[in-house]
């Protein structure tokens, strides 16, 4: 870059946007999925990541957990959970689940990579993130409802028709805000990860980009 030139906005590679089935998008404007890929070194988190978790624990208090549902992004996820039939006080939104664990354990305990990277990004931004083994996925990700006869690998029985899922070109790889199909999780043998963010109405795109950036940067720091 020549001296004095403005640095480019965004980051490379920029997150990819998945599609949402048209009839689902019509029901839920603002629903989206974006993802990015990162080289994986699953296992124990390096010291800088653990230090960051400790710093995050020290910045996170009970008061923030109590008032979390009043903040725009956690509220947006709570509302979406209600709208798809889930009770966010039973099936907790990712950020609320982490807040609860922080209060229960007294700190954000290190679970190793990539979990710690997702924890840092989720607590910082409130965005719902999840990691998949990129080598198992085929094509891009999308949000769609299940078709008759479809099932989630590793789960007995068929999915009830109309269940909201995250899917690749072959079929469902996870329930939306639910279980991941067996074998698609980021495991110790994963070498490349897909970090996916589910966006709902009321969640700004910049927060999604930031969450993916933080997660990827944290993974790369490992």
């Amino acid at each position, binding site marked *: 870059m020549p001296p004095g030139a403005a640095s480019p906005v965004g980051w490379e590679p920029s997150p990819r946007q998945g599609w949402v089935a048209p009839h*689902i998008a019509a029901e839920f404007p603002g629903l989206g999925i974006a993802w990015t890929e990162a080289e994986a070194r699953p296992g124990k988190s390096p010291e800088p990541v653990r230090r960051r978790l400790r710093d995050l624990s020290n910045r996170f208090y009970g008061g923030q957990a109590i008032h979390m549902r009043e903040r725009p992004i956690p509220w947006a996820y709570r509302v979406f959970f209600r709208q798809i039939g889930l009770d966010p006080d*039973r099936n907790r939104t990712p950020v609320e689940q982490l807040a609860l664990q922080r209060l229960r354990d007294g700190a954000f305990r290190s679970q190793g990579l990539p979990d710690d990277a997702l924890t840092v990004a989720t607590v910082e931004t409130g965005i719902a993130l999840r990691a998949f083994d990129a080598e198992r996925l085929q094509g891009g990700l999308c949000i769609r409802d299940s078709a008759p006869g479809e099932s989630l690998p590793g789960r007995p029985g068929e999915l009830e028709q109309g269940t909201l899922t995250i899917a690749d070109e072959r079929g469902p790889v996870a329930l939306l805000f639910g279980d991941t199909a067996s074998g698609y999780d980021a495991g110790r043998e994963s070498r490349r990860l897909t970090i996916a963010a589910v966006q709902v109405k009321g969640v700004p795109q910049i927060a999604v980009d930031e969450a993916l950036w933080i997660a990827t940067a944290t993974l790369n720091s490992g």
Partner: protein
Amino acid sequence: MLDLIARDDQATLSVAVDERPARAELRRQIGHLERELGNLVSEAFGRVEIEHRLRPATAEPRVLDLGGLERVRDELAERVSQARLDLRERALVETRNRELLHEVQTAPAEHKWVKISRHDVGEPGCGGWHSRPHLGPLGMLMGWWRVKVSSGCPLAGRLAAVER
């Protein structure tokens, strides 16, 4: 006549109704109620227990139909209304306690042994006010009543000593 009624019955009229605007409106109401319930839960935290859980509408995520959305909306509305009621009742109790505290502080001898905690008047912390005699039994005999203000929560060291 019966033929006409049968002909105009809604079931026999094959009118396609677009329910999407109705679902969108219900989702908007759910968002509004969720915000209101969130504010009430925060306001009530530590003062009064508020029931905020709903029965899950489905086991797995799906696009709810009108009936499902209505049920979620109605349950949320019920929770909000109950939470408002609980908070109003709690506020009344706290107001009465504050008045009593004022009376105790003004005339401790007329409110012997009355104990009011910070929680009773809707304040955070563990402290409280206790009407008790100065110098123990002597104060009781002499009528030297005063309000003792507790400084707050027990220190962690003291709690650890209790554990030992």
